[in-house]
């Protein structure tokens, strides 16, 4: 039963991601990156420290993460994540929409408010439910490394958790000219 649940979770996540990429590939074409262009699809890799019992002391868990994002408009993006928690040995994924509430033309700092559905194979830690998130991140040095944090709340479980994150972009695709 547990193997079936794990397999279904990864198959679902992979299918959703493949579908999104396929739709974009049909709708868009990808010129080579030029000045003042931005990829619609971008994939990040990174690590998280997660606190399930309040942001005190050491994290409750450490995660390895892959996080795609599809930037649709200056304020609106579709976001996703797939992660593995090393201490509690869980896998989780999710996806949803996010609205940027800070200057949309600042590539080094942003705050986004999100609504995302979370799936997991450890329902006691990460229940499957809709969540709201507040995300803040910036690039503190000239370069690509991003550091940030997230506060999240599960509507069904009434649980909250905090995350500190580091991300690095792996690749971008489907470049579009930026119309400011």
């Amino acid at each position, binding site marked *: 039963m547990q193997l079936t649940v794990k397999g279904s979770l990864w198959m679902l996540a992979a299918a959703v991601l493949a579908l999104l990429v396929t739709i974009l590939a049909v709708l868009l074409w990808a010129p080579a990156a030029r000045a003042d262009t931005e990829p*619609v699809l971008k994939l990040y890799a990174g690590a998280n420290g997660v606190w399930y019992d309040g942001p005190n002391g050491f994290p409750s868990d450490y995660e390895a993460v892959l996080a795609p994002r599809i*930037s*649709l*408009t200056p304020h609106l993006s579709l976001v996703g994540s797939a992660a593995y928690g090393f201490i509690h040995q869980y896998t989780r994924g999710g996806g949803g929409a996010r609205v940027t509430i800070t200057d949309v033309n600042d590539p*080094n*700092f942003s*705050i*986004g408010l999100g609504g995302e559905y979370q799936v997991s194979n450890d329902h006691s830690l990460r229940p499957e439910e809709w969540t709201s998130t507040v995300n803040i*991140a910036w690039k503190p040095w000239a370069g690509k490394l991003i550091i940030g944090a997230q506060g999240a709340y599960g509507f069904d479980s009434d649980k909250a958790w905090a995350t500190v994150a580091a991300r690095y972009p792996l690749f971008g695709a489907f470049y579009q000219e930026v119309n400011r």
Partner: protein
Amino acid sequence: MTIFEALNHLAGGGLGGLLTLLENVGKAAPDLKPEADDSLAKLNTALTPEGLSAVAAALPKELGEVLHGKLNPREHPSDSI
């Protein structure tokens, strides 16, 4: 309920912790303090009725453009979190 309280609820009560994180970054890493202070200032600007109203006003137009197949992507570090 203030805007901060509303967003704090959305963040599961963690928004205050995020603010503290920014402040602690500035204290722990002096070379990052200008960026941390700048980020705090931008956060305070965003969390105003005017700031959030501007976002709310822009969204319907942007959604319309998406429905017409026009994408206008941006780099937002917070999209990666």
